[in-house]
């Protein structure tokens, strides 16, 4: 409820953020209807028409397999949404729960947060590389690995936010009413975390795209046959001079989408409870 209310007021008077939001809606539509809109099968090989220039019928040209870049870009939108949402869910669920419980149950928290500290000390991208090599490349594993990277920061953030809320007078009041731990955590604390979490989620969504693209680039992200914008860049990067469009379009798509998500996140952040402004990382 408050989430839906948040958006229009956050976007009010912010032209750039509104354009960003509309772009994201477009990406979402492309993701949902990729199967309907795409003029070609994104995996269909056509060696005769390989490396075709943008034009008709291949709006964005074709890659070195002769696959239609436009169709792949549409399906790439789907991967963008899946990776983004997946990473956000993993990060918020695991990190969020750890952070919340740690702040609420201080003894458990002391232990759990030390674990988070250990994980924080690990260089995130390197750890992701080791993990993905260990788990093998797949969409699910990419999501898990990126989710874990952001779970630690999310845990830290939620830890801080929950600590603040825990010291709020209305929590004391709930305790004095005799409310149970569960009720205090999920009825009194969690609803107050929704909007900062939404802001955090938008930043995780944005940066997960860059992380996923970086993993794809290093050949340790999504399986290469999956049409994602990162894979498209990674697979076709040697064609920078021979077929520039193969790098230009997916690159611009990534930049636009990450930029839009950041703009929307920023707009949301400006609209949020000032209590939590410092906590949200934007990274």
């Amino acid at each position, binding site marked *: 409820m408050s989430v839906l209310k948040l958006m229009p007021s956050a976007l009010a008077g912010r032209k750039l953020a509104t354009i960003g939001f509309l772009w994201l809606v477009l990406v979402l539509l492309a993701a949902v209807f990729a199967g309907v809109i795409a003029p070609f099968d994104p995996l269909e090989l056509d060696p005769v028409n*390989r*490396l075709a220039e943008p034009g008709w019928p291949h709006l964005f040209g074709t890659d070195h397999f002769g696959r239609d870049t436009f169709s792949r870009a549409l399906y790439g939108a789907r991967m963008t949404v899946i990776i983004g949402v997946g990473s956000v869910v993993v990060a918020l669920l695991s990190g969020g729960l750890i952070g919340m419980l740690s702040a609420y149950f201080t003894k458990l928290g002391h232990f759990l947060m030390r674990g988070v500290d250990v994980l924080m000390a690990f260089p995130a991208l390197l750890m992701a590389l080791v993990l993905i090599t260990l788990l093998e490349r797949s969409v699910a594993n990419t999501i898990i690995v990126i989710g874990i990277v952001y779970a630690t920061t999310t845990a830290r953030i939620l830890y801080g936010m929950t600590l603040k809320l825990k010291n709020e007078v209305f929590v004391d009041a709930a305790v004095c009413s005799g409310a149970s731990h569960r009720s205090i955590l999920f009825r009194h604390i969690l609803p107050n975390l929704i909007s900062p979490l939404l802001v955090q989620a938008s930043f995780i969504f944005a940066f997960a795209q860059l992380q996923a693209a970086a993993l794809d680039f290093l050949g340790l992200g999504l*399986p*290469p046959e999956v049409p994602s914008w990162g894979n498209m860049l990674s697979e076709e990067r*040697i064609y*920078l001079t021979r077929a520039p469009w193969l790098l230009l379009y997916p690159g611009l798509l990534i930049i636009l989408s990450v930029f839009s998500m950041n703009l929307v996140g920023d707009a949301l952040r400006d609209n949020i409870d000032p209590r939590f402004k410092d906590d949200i990382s934007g990274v």
Partner: protein
Amino acid sequence: MKLSRAIRSFALATALTTLSTSVWAEGVLRYATVGEPPSLDQQVITSDLTTTIAHHIFEGLYTFDASNAPVPLLASGETVSEDGKTIVISLRQGVKFHNGEEMTSADVLASLKRWGEFGSRGSLLFDHVESVEATGDYEITLNLKEPFGPWKNLMAFINGGPAIYPASVMDGATKEPISPDNYIGTGPYKFGSWDPNRKIELVRFDDYVSPEGEADGYGGKRVAEFDALNFLPVPDAGTRIAGLRAGDYDYAESIPGDLYAELDADENVTTILNGGPIFGLVFMNSKVGPLKENFALRRAIQSALNKTPALQVAIGPEGLWRANGSFAPEGNVWYSESGTENFSAGKTEEAKSAAAESGYNGEPIKFMVSTNYPFHYDTAIVYTKQLAQAGFNIDLQVYDWATLIEKRAQPDQWDMFFTHHGFVPDPILISVMNDTYPGWWATPEKQELKNRFTASSDEAERQEIWSEIQALIYEQVPTMKTGDVYTYNIASPKLQGMGEATLIWPSFWNVSK
């Protein structure tokens, strides 16, 4: 006033940098490699990159001339007994190791023994060797169990071959590659330093004793013109190309085929084709799984494939690949057309019915490929499509190379895998001939032909037997060749003496800039 001072200091800095560029780059060859070699120990490591670097340091008794015929290098000649079982090799005198000591038969004996026991390709020869001994300071004698034709080719093939090290280095050496401080050879360049991740530097060996005669292939006179050779790991192909164009490298290897036309037309870039083609191989599992002994099914798979589109996608321009079914390129003494009518049939419907006849009912066929080599992956993608159209249920599994290597050693993990093979001067060196190579092809028919093939030393007879083996390969399909790929490298036009094409590995003696 402040601004002018800023400009002045900037100009000074620029002058300094340009000055220093020209100073250090003069006598040094800067070679952009695809990565770092696992080791420079020639005897046990078969990586092409190892040889590209190491054959400037280490030399064998023989090497190949431009026609791929073996010629003496550290040897000065040999005599073979009437029965073909005793080979006496005489060594060149006065040849110096990089540590200043002279090479004698003791060093050669120790090197051959270690190679025979632990070297990558040592057993191919030493399975047939009764004994090897030093029969003089500059003479070594090989006693064979039976006549063995390919001995000289095996001695001349330096990749995983019998490079000669000092006896002191060979003392106690095993399967584990020797350490860099033991990289002591007789070649025109000596090992300088290995700066992990950054470069491998070879420096000119001033006491080098060159073989006589005109340079011919790897044979003949060798002169080190550069002060140093720097091999710099540049794993990204785009960066290698950009770096060569920007003048940061003099030579860059393994360039994607699709860019050939563009680079060939660029006057700031010289393209150099490799003389010996490499070829992709799809191995089939003869130990476990649906393909184990079902040769009919294997042939059905083979006939479903049309190799040309895969080559188009994976390599690109026409000139850089041949849809050639023979295991040796056209013009080579080992070229044969037997069995090659099945090389690239592309008969989808026939394959479908043939598969059904063979008893195949759609069980998944696990096909492993690595992304470390883009052409493996690209080819596998096309094959998977074609096989799916012919009704095969292909489970494509994409791994990194290290994982694939581990998985393929476990017979229950796969049914087919993709690899590639370098050019070899003698078919005995092709991996499918090795019974223990993953795929484990060791049918009685193969054994029989292989025994005849190695026992003969008559060239014509051996060629005849090889063509029978090739026919058998197309019948039992232990592996499928994907076609010849002519890789190419690019160089700065400033380099002198490179020649039109590389024999097998690029060499930088007799080259200057």
